[in-house]
């Protein structure tokens, strides 16, 4: 085990998979000469050369499609979106080409490609640069979606995503890149997709979440502990495939749950999880399932407004108290 940052963990995963499999290449804006806008690809150009670490023009739709074409013909592209905000321009190639190719061709042509980059808000980047894009990517069958919250998960899941034979959206967090944590050094440290991680055990209430919000949930759980409330924090890690068993097991233990996500509420990920839980654990619920999300507004620039717009530990605590009928 070594303590490294989330950024370094991603960098290691890329380096190891590129060394392991020469069909893997990285393409995106500023990934090569600039070492990546957020330095995730630091040093990869020097190590693998410009054939495998490629600076693209600002053509999200075009290079996403080029990546899909490369995947259709046997390569394993890792396409970096500088942030997923810009990937909305590329969504047609993700949904209509990548996600459907295997089905439309009746299994003749698979599409092993990873679309990665930060999703959600950082600090004061305002409305167009602060979106959580999970909903747009998880709705369509044929795609997989992974959202690591820690350095270890970032490394293990990115390696799994690159080895997976389907298109995988891999959503990181700009505010997570400097986050440090223990990561196994083993070259073959891979975390299979579809396995949630109980980041903290508890029996009073389940806090379900993914990505950046895992840390907000953990803060909330720590504060709740002081109030004698033992919250369990379940990090879904991968939204599709989804570890339904772990979700249900936790809810059946605590009989109440809160979903915390960075994005908007309407058809947010939490809506799906709530719908699933109430269908499959109806008789175990002692309270309505609640959700904590971004305020229903485009993200404002002003610091004070942005803070109000984002989910906070206090809002998570309030929701937990509500499902616990405490005040």
């Amino acid at each position, binding site marked *: 085990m070594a303590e490294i940052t989330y950024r370094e963990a991603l960098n290691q995963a890329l380096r190891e998979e590129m060394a392991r499999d020469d069909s893997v290449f990285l393409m995106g804006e500023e990934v090569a000469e600039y070492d990546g806008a957020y330095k995730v690809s630091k040093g990869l150009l020097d190590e693998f050369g410009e054939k495998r670490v490629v600076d*693209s023009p600002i053509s999200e739709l075009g290079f996403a499609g080029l990546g899909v074409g490369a995947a259709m013909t046997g390569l394993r592209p890792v396409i970096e979106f500088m942030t997923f905000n810009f990937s909305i321009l590329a969504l047609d190639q993700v949904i209509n080409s990548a996600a459907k190719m295997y089905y439309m061709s009746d299994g003749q042509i698979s599409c092993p490609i990873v679309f990665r980059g930060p999703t959600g808000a950082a600090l004061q980047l305002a409305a167009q640069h602060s979106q959580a894009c999970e909903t747009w990517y998880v709705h369509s069958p044929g795609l997989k979606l992974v959202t690591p919250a820690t350095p270890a998960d970032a490394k293990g899941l990115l390696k799994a995503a690159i080895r997976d034979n389907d298109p995988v959206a891999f959503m990181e967090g700009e505010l997570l890149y400097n986050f440090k944590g223990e990561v196994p050094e083993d070259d073959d440290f891979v975390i299979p997709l579809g396995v949630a991680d109980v980041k903290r055990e508890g029996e009073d209430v389940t806090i379900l979440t993914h990505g950046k919000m895992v840390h907000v949930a953990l803060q909330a759980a720590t504060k709740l502990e002081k109030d004698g409330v033992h919250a369990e924090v379940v990090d879904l890690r991968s939204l*599709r495939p989804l570890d339904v068993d772990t979700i249900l097991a936790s809810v059946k233990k605590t009989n109440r749950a809160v979903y915390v996500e960075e994005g908007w509420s309407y058809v947010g990920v939490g809506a799906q999880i709530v719908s699933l839980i109430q269908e499959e654990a109806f008789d175990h619920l002692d309270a309505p399932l609640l959700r904590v999300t971004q305020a229903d507004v485009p993200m404002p620039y002003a610091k004070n407004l942005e803070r109000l717009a984002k989910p906070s530990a206090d809002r998570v605590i309030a929701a937990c108290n509500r499902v616990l009928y405490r005040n």
Partner: protein
Amino acid sequence: MSTDTETREEEAMTDETPPQDGGAADLNGIAPERALEILREMLLYRRFEEKAEEAYAIGKIGGFCHLHIGQEGAAAGSILPLRGDDYVISAYREHTQALAKGVRPRAVMAELFGRRDGSSGGKGGSMHIFDVEHRFMGGHGIVGAQVPLAAGFGWTIRYREGDQVVVCFMGDAAVNQGAFHEAMNMAAVWDLPVIFVVENNAYGMGTAFHRVSRTEIHEKASAYGIPTEVVNGQDVLETYRAFADMIAKVRDGGGPFFVDLHTYRFKGHSMSDPVSGTYRSKEEVEGKIESADPIRVLADRLKDAGHLTQKRLEEMDAEAREMSQDALEFADASPPPDPEALYTHVYAEINPNGRLFFDGLERPGFAR
């Protein structure tokens, strides 16, 4: 329709060094035997799609069905010079292009019928013909979306240092899509071995090209620095010659090309659209059928050069009708897909952990 890589390779060779005998000179340097094969191919495309038209009329084919009738020269002339391991990708008007690349008529017709023996097992239909064995990469329904995909095929070839060539077809209306622009630029920047071909039939559905562009198709690559050729797709030998030469250049690392391939659609945009109407006159269509039917043009050239008799032509046509009839009967006899097929091939990898499907439906043989 030949699918044998070697043969095609030789053919390509022949094309690059046309024999000076046998009146090849009159045939854009193409050997008469080869020209006759091309005629046979085009007759098949025509008769095949006429069968599809009949089948659609009686409801055996559903959804959208876009016929290529009138544009056969564009397909034969650009695809027949390719090798078996070269790639072709197109939009939704791709039946004859699939045949040209070697996909079996039976497999294409069965796909139009939505049957189990179709090239995509009945899941793709008219707009999504795929046959990876013959490197026919679809069949795409979003106008312009196939262009970046083609660049990706070219990327792989360059990455693997192969000598294959990609031919990417699109309609004239597709050049107004951002995807076209972004892909052309990348193909130029990275010298990708792709020939981008606009089948310029002058209309996108009911919209004449000059109504949605101030410039001509052949000017559309100027901003990328990609060499451009204007080719008359109604003369298949001219088309074949031009493509054989371009393909050779691209194979030798000559980078991308752009082709404004002039052609004309004899039928409506799709089976549900009128052949003529406000957007083009009956006279215009009839005039084109009269003067620029690629099959007639080739037959006449071969007759004039003394390589074809009316009798031989009729024999060849009869063979084409037979093959098309055979494809039709095969398709009609092919069963619909198993209900279980609904759930197959959504994902190439069903992860051992986690749930991938959320519709609550029973999936026979699919844990998740």
